């Protein structure tokens, strides 16, 4: 989870802010304007980092919202009077946010590179709208003749015409935007966004509507970019269609990467560094001044001229050096010196020692279930009933359709035919997060936890799924219940307290599998679908986890796929044998062991050997 900034980072940011505050006292008009522009760019790029670094959505069309924000000021400004910023700002954010809602509702359906391209497409369509038509001046752009003011009635609070006042306003806006995003990503909402970034399928299976979360972050980022765009238009009162174009979007991505995605402050530094370097490289006089440190004035002037003439070569080389030397951007570079992050202290909660009472879990009934992939029928008319508070094993040779079966039950795949009833309610064909919310939790064949989060954070995320509204921005709602659920889950799954605050990526394989079960428990699922929970475990771990499963069946129904015959015959109350998509047998372990057909198709010699 994104940690609070380290002290060194805070020092750097404060120093920059102090510099900005002092600037009007010694800087010229251009310095002020330059700083103002960089700060506005800063708001724009940190809004993009919410998408790229936090939610994991690389948008190549973010300038669409920046540009719309800029044009919104044009739309709202009277020809020869100032717009009121009290109206202009909400209008910019509303316009950008609304368009983001429309575009996002389509775009977040796609993933990865395809998302990049869809956002690029929408950005270019936005650009064409302003470039190819005469809306707002068309190709040549449009003027905002008078800069906005903050006014209440006739009382003018702040006039953007005043460069220093505008600079301070932008600084305040940047600081607030940064703090807002920092707060946002650490709320329950933001934690889910980070979870989606690292493992969307898992978050969906926990019961989060990942679509809604992604869309919400897209809209927030869009609205914030709109705000930045509106401020940008106020600098000099000129807007052009190119503000919406892919070059601006690309530049913003550049700054995010250069600064370090996923840190929020990094992209800000990226914006500052990129702007300064470009500015310096393009200016013959500055380059000459720089070279004059090493050589005489004439040579320096000559060199400066040459470099400024071909400024994009040194800029390109600078970027390449940046990528190769600092893979995590400027922020990664700073954090090397900032030491390990301090994690927030775990809550001081002792799981209530009271014995959990036997709770009736859920029963699952499958009737004539079919799932086909084109012509291949992976699950073929399976009917079986998993009664509550029992451990049910599913076995069968590879390719028997076991994982497909579980995927259909959990909603990851739609059934082609048949019924699935959870506590007599039909759940067949529902989306995974809806199925999960009804109390069905699942684990995966390959370990599937959020690797950059600690074990406790993983469980907290899962516990949050009990109240999975995307509008949860406060930590305090349900805090106690969730904290308890987390501690209980960690204890129940046997994760040692001293391991709970280690990043999941540093846990052993077995611990990660345990964590996965802990997450299911924390999520409050009553029926657990486990896909090979014992895979890759040594005999000792296997023993521990099978015991855990037995224990859990006190208040859960458990359905698991397993290949470890010794373990599953020992742990399961019933066994279901699937072969080539069909139900071959269902019964107690003893019945299955004696079943001739099962032995023929699957168990072979094993059954006899193990027979007492």
């Amino acid at each position: 989870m994104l940690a609070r900034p380290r002290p060194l980072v805070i020092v750097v940011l404060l120093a920059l802010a102090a510099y900005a505050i002092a600037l009007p006292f010694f800087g010229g008009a251009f310095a002020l304007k330059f700083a103002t522009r960089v700060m506005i760019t800063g708001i724009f790029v940190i809004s993009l980092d919410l998408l790229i670094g936090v939610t994991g959505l690389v948008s190549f069309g973010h300038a669409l919202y920046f540009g719309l924000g800029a044009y919104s000021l044009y739309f709202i400004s009277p020809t020869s009077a100032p717009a009121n910023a009290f109206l202009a700002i909400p209008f910019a954010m509303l316009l950008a946010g609304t368009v983001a809602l429309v575009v996002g509702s389509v775009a977040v359906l796609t993933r990865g590179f395809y998302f990049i391209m869809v956002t690029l497409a929408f950005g270019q369509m936005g650009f064409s709208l302003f470039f190819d038509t005469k809306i707002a001046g068309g190709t040549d752009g449009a003027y905002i003749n008078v800069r906005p003011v903050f006014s209440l009635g006739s009382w003018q609070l702040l006039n953007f015409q005043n460069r220093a006042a505008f600079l301070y306003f932008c600084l305040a806006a940047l600081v607030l935007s940064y703090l807002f995003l920092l707060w946002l990503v650490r709320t329950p909402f933001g934690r889910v966004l980070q979870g989606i970034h690292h493992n969307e399928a898992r978050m969906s299976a926990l019961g989060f509507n990942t679509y809604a979360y992604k869309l919400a972050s897209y809209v927030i980022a869009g609205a914030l970019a709109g705000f930045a765009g509106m401020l940008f238009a106020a600098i000099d009162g000129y807007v052009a269609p190119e503000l919406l174009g892919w070059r601006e979007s690309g530049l913003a991505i550049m700054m995010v990467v250069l600064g370090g995605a996923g840190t929020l402050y990094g992209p800000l530094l990226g914006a500052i560094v990129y702007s300064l370097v470009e500015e310096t490289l393009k200016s013959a006089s500055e380059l000459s001044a720089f070279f004059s440190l090493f050589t005489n004035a004439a040579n320096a002037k000559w060199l400066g001229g040459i470099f400024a003439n071909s400024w994009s070569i040194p800029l390109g080389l600078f970027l390449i050096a940046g990528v190769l030397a600092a893979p995590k951007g400027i922020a990664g570079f700073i954090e090397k010196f900032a030491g390990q992050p301090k994690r927030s202290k775990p809550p001081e909660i002792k799981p209530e020692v009271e014995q959990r009472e036997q709770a009736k879990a859920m029963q699952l009934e499958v009737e004539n279930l079919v799932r086909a992939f084109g012509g291949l029928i992976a699950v073929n008319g399976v009917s079986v009933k998993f009664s509550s508070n029992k451990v049910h094993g599913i076995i069968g040779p590879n390719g028997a359709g076991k994982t497909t079966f579980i995927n259909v039950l959990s909603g990851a795949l739609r059934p082609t035919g048949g019924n699935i009833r959870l506590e007599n309610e039909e759940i067949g064909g529902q989306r995974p997060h809806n199925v999960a919310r009804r109390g069905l939790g699942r684990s995966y064949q390959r370990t599937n936890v959020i690797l950059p989060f600690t074990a406790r954070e993983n469980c907290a995320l899962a516990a949050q799924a009990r109240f999975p509204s995307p509008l949860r921005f406060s930590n305090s709602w349900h805090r106690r219940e969730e904290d308890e659920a987390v501690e209980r889950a960690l204890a129940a799954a046997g994760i040692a307290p001293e391991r709970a605050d280690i990043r999941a990526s540093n846990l052993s394989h077995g611990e990660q599998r345990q964590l996965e079960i802990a997450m299911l428990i924390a999520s409050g699922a009553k029926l657990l679908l486990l896909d090979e929970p014992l895979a890759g475990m040594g005999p000792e771990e296997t023993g521990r986890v099978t015991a855990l499963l037995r224990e859990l069946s006190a208040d859960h129904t458990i359905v698991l796929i397993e290949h470890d015959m010794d373990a599953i015959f020992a742990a399961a109350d019933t066994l279901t044998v699937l072969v080539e998509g069909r139900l071959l047998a269902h019964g107690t372990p003893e019945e299955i062991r004696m079943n001739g057909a099962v032995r023929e198709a699957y168990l072979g010699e094993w059954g006899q050997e193990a027979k007492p």
Partner: protein
Amino acid sequence: MHNKSRITRRDALKLAGAGAAVAAFPFARPAIAQGAPLKVGLLLPYSGTFAALGDAITNAMDLYVKQQGGKLGGRTIQWVKVDDESKPERAVENTSKLVEGEKVDVLIGTVHSGVAMAMAKIAREAGLPTLIPNAGANALTRSQCAKNIFRTSFGNSQPGVAAGKAMIDAGIKTAVTYTWGYAAGEESVEGFKQSFLAGGGKIVKEIRLPFPNVEFQAGLAEIASLKPQAVYSFYAGGGALKYMKDYAAAGLNKSVQLWGPGFLTDGVEKAAGEAGNGVKTASHYVDTLDNAENKKFRADYNAAFKVFPDVYAVQGWDTTHLLDIGLKAVGGDVSKKDDLFKAMRNAKFNSPRGPFRLSASQNPIHNFYLRELKNGENVFVKVAATDVSDPTTGCSLA
């Protein structure tokens, strides 16, 4: 392998030091001593699509000043160049850099209309003497005109007006327009329609191609099916070159005359080769214009840069000429703005393009020439229209 990527603390300090040094530069400018040279800011494209135009304009201006002994109106001229990359989205900061950063005394720019619009906004607010050596956006000397802004090139509609008139004179009655559907193209067509329709011509269809798309085939097929007598087209640079080649390759040059403003062939005459033969354009400049200024200018320019000047160089030359007239009138003291502007506004001189003066909205009034492209040369045909001016619609100066 984990050792490799480790950067020592000392390396980091060195880098941080270098970073701080770089960071300080944009704002650490030497103070300007009194009596210093006149700083002229050049906001021109030195990279990107229009870089060639920026270079031509700069060369001509440089040549003019050198011929005057490095001085205009008694003041040594110091160029301060900023590459505007023809990017409107960067225009505001690039202009600010010259106006507020470098604190230039005079601003000259630029080629791209969008960039020029942004530049003009800032220049107008700053009241800075500003000369536009190319950008043709009509608004610059119409609704957005200002007493400190002068254009020495043309308004986008002007060549269209001249071409329309010349087409009527050539007996053409039906035409199709096929242009980039952005502002410059639309404005060019606006001028063309004005004179062509007035002369009794009929426009069969207006076809637009989104800028800067260069897939002309679809439109060419349409033209072939409409069978007009002529096509009026606005394209420029690489796009124009490809257009002429596609036009000829489709065989249309044999049956439908191709007309356009001068930009259709300027700068690409040689490259067009045979494909360009017969393309007729109306421009405010022809290489072979028979006047003393032009002959001298061409000879001097060629001597200096080993290449003959084009229309953009002429515009650069006239820009400096106009500035020179203004500066002479105030003895190089740009603070006497009213006198400076008055002198420039009333300037009349003989340019390589012929007689040059400014309209009330400070846009050139000049002759347009009909040219025909023949084997890589724009050959003078006749004067298409004399003293062409652009409407001053919406200009407060008029």
